[in-house]
């Protein structure tokens, strides 16, 4: 076993961004900026940026090398 324990760093990165992306998108869609900051003019930034993060997260998961037995090692 190498010093990376067969863990591809793209897996946790992809997973984190997917989770955060889903969370932000859902929050942005369900709560249309009721408390909006002084400068952000109306735009659904939570939702749009959440989607961007989601796409990035899924992309990272897709290009990650298939793990042999990630949890078992």
């Amino acid at each position, binding site marked *: *076993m*190498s*010093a*990376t*324990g*067969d*863990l591809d*760093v793209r897996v*946790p*990165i992809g*997973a*984190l*961004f997917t*989770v*955060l992306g889903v*969370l*932000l998108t859902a*929050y*942005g869609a369900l*709560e249309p*900026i009721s*408390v*909006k*900051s*002084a*400068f*952000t*003019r109306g*735009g659904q*930034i*939570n939702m749009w*940026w*959440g989607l*961007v*993060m989601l796409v*990035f997260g899924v992309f990272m998961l897709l290009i990650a090398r298939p793990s042999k037995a*990630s949890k078992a*090692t």
Partner: protein
Amino acid sequence: MVPGLSPIGLRSIDYAIIAIYFAFVLGIGWQLRRAMRTSTDFFLSGRSLPAWITGLAFLSANLGAQEVIGMGASGAKYGISTSHFYWIGAVPAMLFVGIFMMPFYYGSKARSVPEYLRLRFDEKTRAFNAVSFAIMTVFSSGVSMYAMGALMHLLLGWSFNVSVLVSAVIVLTYILLGGLTSAIYNEVLQFFLIVFGFAPLVIVGLNEVGGWSGLQVKLTQLAVSQGHPAGAYTHAWKGMDAPAHNLIGVEWFGLVMGLGFVLSFGYWCTDFLVVQRAMAADSMESARRTPLIAAVPKMVFPFLVILPGMIALVIGGKGIIPAKVAEGGGPLLDAAGHVVLDYDLATPSMLMHLFPNGMLGLGLAALLASFMSGMAGNITAFNTVWTYDLYQTYIRKDANDEHYLWIGRVATVVGIALAIAAAYVAASFNNIMELLQLVFAFVNAPLFATFFLGMFWRRTTGHGAFWGLLSGTVAAAVHHGLTLPAGAVPGVKGGYFGVLETFRSEMGQTFWTAIFAWTTCFVVTIIISMLTRPRPDEELVGLVYSLTPKPVSTARAVWEKPAFLGIVTLLLLLVLNLLFR
């Protein structure tokens, strides 16, 4: 809390995002817990990581919270000229270390930068470097911990103690579990989080001020109203002919030689904190590509970390950077009666004003990420230098590997405990920290002369290197002691031996101190080397340029070759400088 700085409070969504980030950071350490079998795994990731990972970690380890906050502050103070700290102040040195120096660091099989000095020179040169480096890493992570705790208290009303302890414990846990691999993996994760946390800040901010052209118009008006040249904030090179013509207060020669050559090469080419990332690479090829890969995002990072500060200066007409608080409670005024802004709050104010809940949590997670990556960088470099260069050399030479792995874990705990102690020292005695950082600056300034001569002039001797370093450090102290930035009183800012010259700015003084230190070290090293006995050539194979077979790039694709990557990066750098001249 600063009134008016936090128009919206945190909500559960923000806390949830921060908590999820923490969970992932710890999860990476947990996943790697069984992979740390030997000291090489723990300190050097078993030299097994691909270049893109070590490259992003190389960048991220340097991207501490002080960097992110400090670059925003400098953006508000100096405008786009702050990019010099990235463009000429980092990228050329990163290319140099990758193309020319990595063959010796990686090829010599040294496990740390001080160990390279031992192989190339002698024991005393290594000891000097190892001791000063070990102390420096602990104190700088202490200082950044203090800055972070103070900021979180100011912005969010979080307890200083809790912020410091929680972040320290998280960093401690993931390094203990997964060693350098865990630190590096988290640095890569943190890199992406910082990008995704700050990019929307810039997008929303630019949108608000009417894009880059709108920002230019507003900053030009501001510059004129303050009595500066019109392009002071928006041009990087225009006023560089004389210190009085630009906001940094330095002329092009001091900038290019002091920052671009001495300080930048001294840091990026010799600091074990960054070099360690490249040493963890899986091959010579990857080790050389590490800083080259890092150089590309480094070049565009100014837009991510400097622009928020510039936007904060003018957004909404009057900007959103709060004034420094005077002793009486009102805004602090300078001698001319102008309000003194608290520039360190430029980037945090942008987060607090521009992001709604949700994005705010992401932005704060990014800020915490930058803090953690910087701290982990310091601690992993500290535990390695302590274990290999100090413990194994002076305390216990011939223990088995398991013992050193154990000592590395102990050093991690002790290093973090010392850093926490340093944070509290910083909180109570501000001057002590300023003084220490000054001493480190003196020790660091001449370093590159030693490495440069050692790697490229085979005649350089150990005595030459040691005395060169020492006299360079002394020269730095003497130069600093004889000069003073305008408006300062003799003391920690300089002038303690009398004032021979006054610089327009502290930056100008720093750059010239570095130039003096480097030149002294360079000259003294050569003189002493000529007077002492050189080592036989056969001992220096693999350590000196002329005696080492040139690394032949095995990369098949041309875009993977170090030299090609270097040239393309330099061209891009040139284009950026022309665009923002």
